[in-house]
């Protein structure tokens, strides 16, 4: 996404936001929406953390683990990529209690979304590690490094840089899928939108504003990941096949 289009989008979004916020009676629904926004951000952060951890564990297990662990990691990745996020969420929320495991709605939300994005992230991590040239591995062997040490000190730091842009996309996917948690009674932004809509019938303003809030958060993620990429590359633009 070129920078110019981001700026154009942001300006249009801001202008539209001003128009809608200037409508009379907005104090009826703005506070509720902001509370929902906070919940949405919390779930996004929690889910992102879990997703990164799950992705690294699954990718490393799939690439370097012994056969049973490799098989387990493949199962995890295929199941979470092959079924939809909403089905996973409902499974944790409706089915697990009947199997005797009761999670709070917030826990099920973070767990389902984090594991879902983590499964996609595992492939990103795998791609990043595979993208590091073979020579690097050979050099670590020549230097008599153990494989875990080589992975930690040589391979992962290089793979990490290539992984940043796809992770940015995944975090935006995660943000978008947090809207699903409104269906398991969590009062996130989407839930609040429906609630405020039923209370005030300001349908157009509320849903437009909510779309703009989501857009704002995803622009923040985009800029954040850009900044992270700049820091990680130390300001040097490296040749990368992307």
């Amino acid at each position, binding site marked *: *996404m070129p920078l110019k289009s981001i700026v*154009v989008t942001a300006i249009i979004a801001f202008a539209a936001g001003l128009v809608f916020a200037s409508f009379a009676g907005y104090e009826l629904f703005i506070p509720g929406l902001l509370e929902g926004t906070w919940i949405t951000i919390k779930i996004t952060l929690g889910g992102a953390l879990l997703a990164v951890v799950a992705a690294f564990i699954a990718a490393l297990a799939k690439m370097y683990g012994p056969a049973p662990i490799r098989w387990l990691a493949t199962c995890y990745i295929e199941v979470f990529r092959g*079924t*939809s996020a909403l*089905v996973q969420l409902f499974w944790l929320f409706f089915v697990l209690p009947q199997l005797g495991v009761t999670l709070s709605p917030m826990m099920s939300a973070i767990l389902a979304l984090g594991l879902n994005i983590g499964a996609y992230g595992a492939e990103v991590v795998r791609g990043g590690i595979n993208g590091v040239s073979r020579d690097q591995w050979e050099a670590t062997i020549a230097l008599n490094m153990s494989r875990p040490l080589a992975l930690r000190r040589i391979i992962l730091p290089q793979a990490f840089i290539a992984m940043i842009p796809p992770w940015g996309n995944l975090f935006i996917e995660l943000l978008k899928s947090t809207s699903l948690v409104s*269906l398991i009674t969590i009062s996130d932004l*989407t839930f609040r939108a429906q609630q405020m809509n039923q209370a005030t019938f300001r349908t157009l303003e509320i*849903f437009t504003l909510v*779309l703009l809030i989501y857009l704002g958060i995803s*622009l923040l993620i985009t800029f954040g990941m850009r900044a992270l990429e700049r820091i990680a590359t130390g300001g040097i633009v490296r040749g990368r096949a992307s």
Partner: protein
Amino acid sequence: MFWDWEYAFEVLPVLAGASIITIQATVLGFILALVLGLIFAIMRMSRNRAISGATTAVVEFIRSTPLLIQIFFIYFVLPEFGIVLDAFLAGTLALGIHYATYCSEVYRAGIEAIPRGQWEAATALNLSPTTTFRDIIIPQAIPPVVPALGNYLVALFKETPLLSAIAVLELMQTAKILGSQNFRYIEPITLVGGFFLIFSLIASAANRYAERRLSTIGKR
């Protein structure tokens, strides 16, 4: 006993019936996504900067906001402007528009991969821009991106449970109703998960096959 086979076989036919709605929404939504995506891609490449800029903004906006809100928007907001759609139509429309933005990126990549010489040859032959696009560029641009489009078909299919939020009686909604009627969610929801898993695995296998076939055609 965690899993009740008798109950599972009881709900299976009901779920199979509901899966038809899921498949209808997938097919209709994807056709819309393919057509609208191509329109977006062409508009985005327009030489008129107002058109290309506006299309870029719209596409980025739709891509970075949640599908669920877009479904609500079409279902709840459009009636205020006098456009009343039933739940299935509203949901399918939202699915189609959302995935059209993803497809437009795929088409754009395909079109940009066409060598400049093709455009220049079309100009040299005095072909109109419409003819160039329709007969020269598009037929070459589409086949290489079929696997990428296939991935989005699978992704769209997996998003259809969102239609349950506006009470379309597709798989997920039916499973939830069955669960609340019988106070047993284990079998219906697990079966729905299994259904999606099986279809996704088959679809990705088909997609890999198509990718292999297309890459051999390209190498000839």
